């Protein structure tokens, strides 16, 4: 549980950092609406250059939120929501940890009372 948690926790942090930027959130949204979009296509709806979009896409890819495959000369981008699921799983893990702790507390104080 907690032992395997660290790597996932670091990743969770990366995911949220990646999503903290409004341009990147916009890109995630755009990719949700049109899977397989190109950097050029995505840039056309934004006031920034194709290069800037590519840079943001690279960061999203590093966080595991976006993956790409080549089609001819262009890379087609798609959303991968798995890391978000992981982020939520981390929150669930925190809840499970409290469940265990509070069960221990219950044993402790009720043992004394009875």
């Amino acid at each position, binding site marked *: 549980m*907690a032992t395997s948690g660290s790597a996932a*926790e*670091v990743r969770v942090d990366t995911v949220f950092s990646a999503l903290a930027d409004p341009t990147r959130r916009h890109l995630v949204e755009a990719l949700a609406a049109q899977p397989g979009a190109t950097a050029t296509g995505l840039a056309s709806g934004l006031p920034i250059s194709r290069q800037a979009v590519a840079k943001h896409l690279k960061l999203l890819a590093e966080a595991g939120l976006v993956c790409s495959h080549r089609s001819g000369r262009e890379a087609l981008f798609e959303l991968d929501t798995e890391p978000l699921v992981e982020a*939520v799983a981390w929150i669930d893990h925190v809840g499970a940890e409290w469940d265990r702790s509070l069960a221990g507390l*219950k044993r402790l104080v009720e043992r004394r009372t*009875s």
Partner: protein
Amino acid sequence: MSTLAHTVTRSVVLDAPPAEVWEAITDEGQLSEWLAPEVELDPQEGGEVVCRFEDGEERRGEVELVEEAERLAFRWWREGAGPSRVEFVVDAVAEGTRLTVIESGLVPNAAPLLAAGWAPRLRALRLQVGRLVLA
């Protein structure tokens, strides 16, 4: 406020008087029996808290709020995450005592997402992935 499930709330009803429950959440010796194997806590505002867990993780922090026999809050740092705030609330109930724990600010980098009204969009994504639990 809409949240990105970054607050965890748990509650337990204990067959013990509030004073005993308060002691169990503020006394180092007792905390070491249920919260983590090794707990140091100076239960006053600004006091230090240190928890060492079985797996070697150490969380350090600082006490933020002490309302004698009612409320204790501290901030600690989970490994690989930023600071989160833990608050214990002690309530007398007919069966004994209800203890509620609220851990908030989990993954604080999520804050800008929340500010930007990101939650509804994630809710839409949730439909796609089928399993994004949002508060």
